[in-house]
């Protein structure tokens, strides 16, 4: 049942904790392997990204300009981190509605530390992220202690965190931030690549290593796949859940701080009412990327590609002058289409015994 400690390499790119399907007679042939690869989430996403890139490049002249690519990479950097922040909680079989709220709280704390307390920017970032970890851990502790579903706990804390933040800041923003910090979000490497994107990719690598190679990561996957079995095999599921919520808090905080560095100001309304504007991007990335909502499976690459696809579509549609308001409808339709395609893909794979 448990292959937590087994050292066999994962078969597909996704990290999963499920029984390997019994070896089938045809599995040595190329056919099923290829079908499985072609039907994997990551491959599908990559194909869609290439397809839409070509369409947008042909349809709009500005799409391939270096500024547009730079802006897209920078937006993608933030969206991917928001997706990661939700992914690490979904892995545990829960969800975290307060990502947006935590993100804004951390961003405001960072702004306060840098502007009012006069702390150097790197200490400000560290301090704000520690706050993010603490807020996230608080979510986790409440979920573990009460035994209630993370949905209702984080729904309540989303309101509480945002309320406390807006009370403390009196809805004011911090606009006089250290220039080197603001510069970081505006810098261009080779005229195209934003340093924020590089930070995001590094975090992606770290998360990959975390889920594949570290004990804590494997424990988190095990706890998400089957909490009872994990508990019986000696994993402290409680601690694992608190850990993943703390991690989610840190990641949400990173996304918030990235936005601050990009806009050059910490603004309380940057994630909408109660941080609700982050909810859709937070779920789009992981769900498109094939992270199971029931837990136990995470795909860092999938989430990254999913969030990138979302950013690509948003940018492309805006350049096609679809109108910012209709883009939201399109993203909703995309999420709906994604879960439906995923469902039929799973049914197909199960019917042909490929999973």
């Amino acid at each position, binding site marked *: 049942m448990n292959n937590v400690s087994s050292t066999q390499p994962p078969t597909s790119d996704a990290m999963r904790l499920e029984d390997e399907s019994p070896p089938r007679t045809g599995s040595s042939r190329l056919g099923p392997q290829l079908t499985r690869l072609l039907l994997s989430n990551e491959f599908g996403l990559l194909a869609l990204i290439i397809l839409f890139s070509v369409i947008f490049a042909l349809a709009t002249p500005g799409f391939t300009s270096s500024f547009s690519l730079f802006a897209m990479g920078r937006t993608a950097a933030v969206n991917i981190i928001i997706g990661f922040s939700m992914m690490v909680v979904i892995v545990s079989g829960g*969800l975290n509605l307060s990502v947006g709220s935590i993100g804004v709280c951390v961003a405001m704390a960072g702004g306060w530390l840098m502007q009012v307390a006069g702390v150097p920017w790197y200490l400000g970032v560290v301090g704000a992220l520690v706050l993010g970890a603490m807020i996230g851990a608080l979510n986790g502790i*409440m979920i573990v202690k*009460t*035994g*209630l*579903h993370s*949905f*209702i*706990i984080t*729904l*309540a*804390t*989303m*309101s*509480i965190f*945002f*309320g*406390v933040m*807006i*009370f403390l800041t*009196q*809805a004011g923003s911090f606009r006089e931030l250290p220039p080197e910090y603001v510069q970081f979000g505006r810098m261009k490497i080779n005229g195209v690549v934003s340093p924020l994107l590089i930070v995001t990719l590094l975090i992606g690598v770290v998360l990959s290593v975390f889920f594949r190679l570290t004990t804590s990561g494997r424990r988190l996957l095990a706890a998400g796949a089957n909490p009872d079995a994990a508990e019986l095999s000696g994993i402290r599921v409680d601690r694992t859940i608190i850990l993943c919520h703390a991690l989610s808090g840190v990641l949400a905080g990173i996304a918030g701080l990235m936005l601050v560095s990009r806009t050059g100001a910490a603004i309380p309304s940057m994630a909408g*009412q*109660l941080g*609700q504007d982050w*909810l*859709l991007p937070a*779920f789009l990335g992981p*769900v498109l990327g094939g992270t199971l*909502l029931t837990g136990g499976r995470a795909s860092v690459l999938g989430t990254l590609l999913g969030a990138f696809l979302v950013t690509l579509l948003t940018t492309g549609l805006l350049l096609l002058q679809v*109108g910012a*308001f*209709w*883009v*939201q*409808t*399109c*993203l*909703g*339709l995309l*999420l*709906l289409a994604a*879960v*439906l395609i995923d*469902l039929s893909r799973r049914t197909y794979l199960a019917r042909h015994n490929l999973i």
Partner: protein
Amino acid sequence: MKRQLNRYLQSDWFGPLLITIAAIALVSWFNPSFLSPFNIQILLLAIAVNAIIAYSQMVIIAIGQMNLSVGAIGGLVAISFSGFMEVWSIPWPVAAFMALSVGLTAGYINGLFVAMTGISAFIITLATLSIYKGLNLGITEATPFYKIPETVKALGNSNFIEPLPWLVLPTIIVTFCLWYLLNRLPVGRFILAVGGNEHAAELSGISVRKTIITAHAISGFLAGLAGIMLVARLQIGQPTIGDDWLILSFAAPVIGGAVLTGGHISVAGTLLGVVIVAIITQVLVLFNVDPFLVQVVLGLLILWAVGLNKLREVRAARSMDELGAGA
């Protein structure tokens, strides 16, 4: 006698009722203007709309799901209602009927996707939330409809008997209908049965799919009704209507003893939950507490209520165990 008392103590609405009475007594002792006709009218206006919002979520909680798109449906119906009247000059009763059909359809679509695909309602309604909100903003381009007929404005802001506003009427009717539906009609019993144990409900011959779709359609209809009532109250077809409904829609049913896993809700409890939230919000204003803290209080209320419900559940399970041991 003692058993009767025990039954009251264990019912969902008893605790919230005590709190409501105590709160009213305490607040009016500190601040007599709390019970002035004007203040009562303001309270009732808030309660009337918020109760419908809470019912809209409550019906979905009853089947053990959640509906994140309550606010988006409310907003879409609100702008449809005012748009029909302003752009197409449709008389208001017809416009209201058409707008309510929009809400019903939106809810029906939610239910159809949830029931047919088996994907969690959370994801489906998150997707439709953004679709409906996008439609709303795409149509209005974020500008409100201003030309609301005088009759509608009057209905939203006048009383039919002092100090009862007209808007209380639909709420009273809906409250009664929902109570009758959930306690007396087969559909309502099916909804609760599906929420309690979907598998058992299916085995006993209930069509789970139909029940889920019905519940979502009712939810959409109620969200739409709340949207229309808000248009009448605000005298303007605001596209932002519904943006802040999410927390409230969960708070009131949970305070009223609803179990989030489904199968157990209370119409009276939910109504009292709305009353408690309204009183607390007013008290914060009366005592000059920072309005920003209302969000914090709402969040804490949810935590407190779900904690309490959990405690009751554990206690009930324990007493069941004792009964089992005795037998």
